[in-house]
């Protein structure tokens, strides 16, 4: 691809990214305003002695009496200047702090499970494709499909039961904490990251990250398998074999690099979506990440928090797609981006 047209394509893509992010912000503003229910009603304690002036005061405080256009203007300006306002609930903490705090735990959880997912899924998929139709392929593919069809929340509930009670009186069965993110009874309300506390955090991480990994490993291994099978039927593989390369060399030098593009797109998608929230796992294991916060802010009608979670999730998806496209163009010059 000639340099100038390449630069032109990149510029167009960057422009598109900006346009999409802008669209997400506008759409998001209207979506959250169309959500059912009045947040102020939720903030005022529900009691027979209901004070109307309190409601008016709160409406004034959160700019709810301005026109929609004015609110949209404020919202755009505040988003860009990172002045994300305060939550309607949660002791009116700044939204930025809340999201930053939750993001740490989500990244830890997601990072942990993604590493396992990629390592296991890609190895499984590659080996299945390599020995296509063999015993390992059949077993691995059926197990993958089984987990692929499983609601993640159901898997979480079942695993939670399996590792928090002694099934059938088996006392040797390992026990794991059912929920939370560290042993708060033992270490108090705040973490100081000493060694035993880090171990506690890791122990509480095992079950949620294993659930998340089991739920996503199937997708990775299936995509890896089918993409490799696609490349294995190409003529250059035949040529490589004819040259006398060993099976391993064919796989390593010719099949794997050419089978990677779909994987990269999938990984980008996965990471982006997971930043948007591993809702089900976080809700069941009571893990205080972004997904857990999303559900909480929906039920509390906490619009400021919800808005920025959606924006961050959307921007993550857009950026991840953009980066994966760039990477694909770089490693595979045949790809024409329209």
């Amino acid at each position, binding site marked *: 691809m000639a340099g100038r047209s390449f630069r032109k394509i990149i510029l167009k893509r960057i422009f598109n990214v900006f346009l999409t992010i802008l669209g997400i912000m506008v759409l998001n503003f209207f979506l959250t305003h169309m959500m059912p229910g009045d947040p102020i009603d939720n903030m005022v304690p529900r009691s027979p002695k209901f004070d109307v002036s309190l409601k008016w005061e709160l409406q004034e405080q959160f700019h709810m009496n301005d026109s929609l256009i004015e609110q949209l203007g404020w919202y755009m300006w505040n988003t860009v200047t990172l002045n994300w306002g305060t939550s309607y609930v949660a002791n009116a903490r700044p939204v930025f702090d809340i999201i930053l705090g939750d993001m740490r735990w989500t990244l830890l959880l997601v990072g942990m499970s993604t590493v396992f997912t990629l390592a296991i899924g890609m190895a499984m998929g590659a080996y299945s494709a390599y020995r296509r139709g063999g015993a390992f392929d059949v077993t691995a593919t059926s197990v993958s499909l089984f987990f692929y*069809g499983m*609601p993640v*929340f159901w898997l979480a509930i079942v695993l939670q039961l399996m590792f928090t009670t002694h099934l059938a009186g088996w006392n040797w069965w390992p026990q794991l904490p059912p929920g939370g993110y560290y042993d708060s009874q033992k270490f108090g309300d705040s973490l100081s990251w000493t060694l035993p506390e880090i171990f506690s955090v890791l122990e509480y991480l095992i079950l949620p990250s294993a659930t998340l990994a089991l739920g996503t490993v199937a997708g990775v291994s299936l995509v890896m398998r089918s993409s490799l099978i696609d490349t294995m039927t190409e003529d250059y593989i035949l040529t490589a074999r004819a040259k006398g390369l060993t099976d391993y060399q064919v796989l390593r030098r010719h099949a794997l690099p050419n089978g990677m593009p779909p994987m990269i797109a999938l990984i980008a998608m996965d990471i982006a979506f997971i930043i*948007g929230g591993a809702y*089900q796992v976080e809700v069941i294991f009571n893990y205080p990440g972004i997904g857990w916060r999303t559900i909480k802010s929906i039920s509390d009608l906490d619009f400021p928090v919800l808005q920025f979670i959606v924006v961050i999730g959307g921007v993550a998806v857009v950026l991840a797609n953009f980066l994966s496209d760039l990477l694909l163009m770089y490693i595979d010059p045949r790809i024409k981006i329209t």
Partner: protein
Amino acid sequence: MSRVTSIEDTHNDSKDRRHLSARGVLLVVASVALVLMLSVPVGLTYGSDSAPSLRASGASIAAEPVAVAGLSTNVTVGDEVFLNGTASVPSDGATITSYFWTIMEESGTKLEIYNYSGSMFNFTFEDTGLFACNLTITDSNGLNDSDSFFINVRARPQTFLEKNMLLLITAAILTGAGIYLAFDAYTKRKAGLPMIASSTKEKYRLGFKRWRKIMKQLLKNPMGAVGVFILAVFIFIAAFGPWLAPYDVKTIDPFNDLQKSSKDHWMGTDNFGIDIFSELLYGARTSIIVGIISAVIASFLGAAVGLYSGYVGGWKDEVVMRLNDIVLSIPWLVLMIVVAAFVGKIDLTGIILIIGLTGWSTTARMVRAQVLSIRERQYIERARCIGSSELAIIRRHIFPNTFPLVFANTILTVAVSILSEATLSFLGLRPVGVVTWGTMLSFASEASAFQQGLHWWILAPGLCIVAVVLGFTLLGYALDEILNPKLRHR
């Protein structure tokens, strides 16, 4: 083309008629099956109990006040229910100072709340659904206690006409089709034309042959065979489940709640006293219907958007694709909750619309990519040269070429839709008035079924979802392999 028929052979033998009647029988069977599938979810919300008056019972002496609201029960729409809360007075001589009732309708995101002060009152239920009634009392020491129960409000008994509405409509349609066919046959005979033109016959013969070939390949493919087998079992359950079920799932029985599995109740009963095994059988139909119809809606929208965007190209394509990007980037849960707000009360139709209206973006992208490559083929150029209109090109050349892909993708989308329904139910967007595997799981996890020893309540619906999703996924992959020319030769 009508002139051509005159030079075709006009032997009007019994084979042609047999062909016609076979198709007629197929049509009737399919229609009856469809009606059977559709009629029961509609009839699910109906019952015919008379209104009971709810009386509180029992009093105990305790250090704290104890509220007694009553027992869960079934009533019919329009019934005036007498709610009478009592409380046992604590032993230290305190008196009850206030009674506070809350009646809350469970309907997805829209909560309707009624508050009443006072120990007893009459309440008229004007809506079907499940209502949670909660009584909170406070005594003179400031201590309080609350108790709650559910009232299951069912629609009034149906008249004969309402009950058989779908059947009657189907009968009317079938009669109409019959009259049309008879009239058609009469005019053709009068004009001396063959009952079925040979060209038509050939078309159907080829279509049938192709279909049989695909079926053969499907059953030879191990994934396809397993998928077809699983789905056959579950579609049988979906069609006949309500007749196989040992209990009714719409009548709550507060005296038999949370029973462990026994000879009477194979999988136990839930917190409303409903037999879990029966719910599982009823749930097959609703879950599969939700999956199929919402997948069809999503595929239809996606194919339409993709065809349009890919074919017209230019700035219109850009606008559509940017919008599509935006929709794809918004977290799906938030999107679904907002769509739910538009849809209003979430019942079976509501949940189908929510899933269908949010799931089209990926299909649109896929179809667009396919159209982009088809658009440049030579036969499109040729069609344009002989003066085909744009619509004709899309309809006769582009759509048929994308159809196999869309079809295989729809089957895969059914699997995703069934999972979405379960997840939405679990996260609180629960369709009211129907039993699906998702709502079962949602109630089970709210009632912490495992701690109650009711393992089947969580395991059975989950395993059913896994099996059906697996069936649709396998079938989808197999069809993709058969129908997608790129994958056929590997």
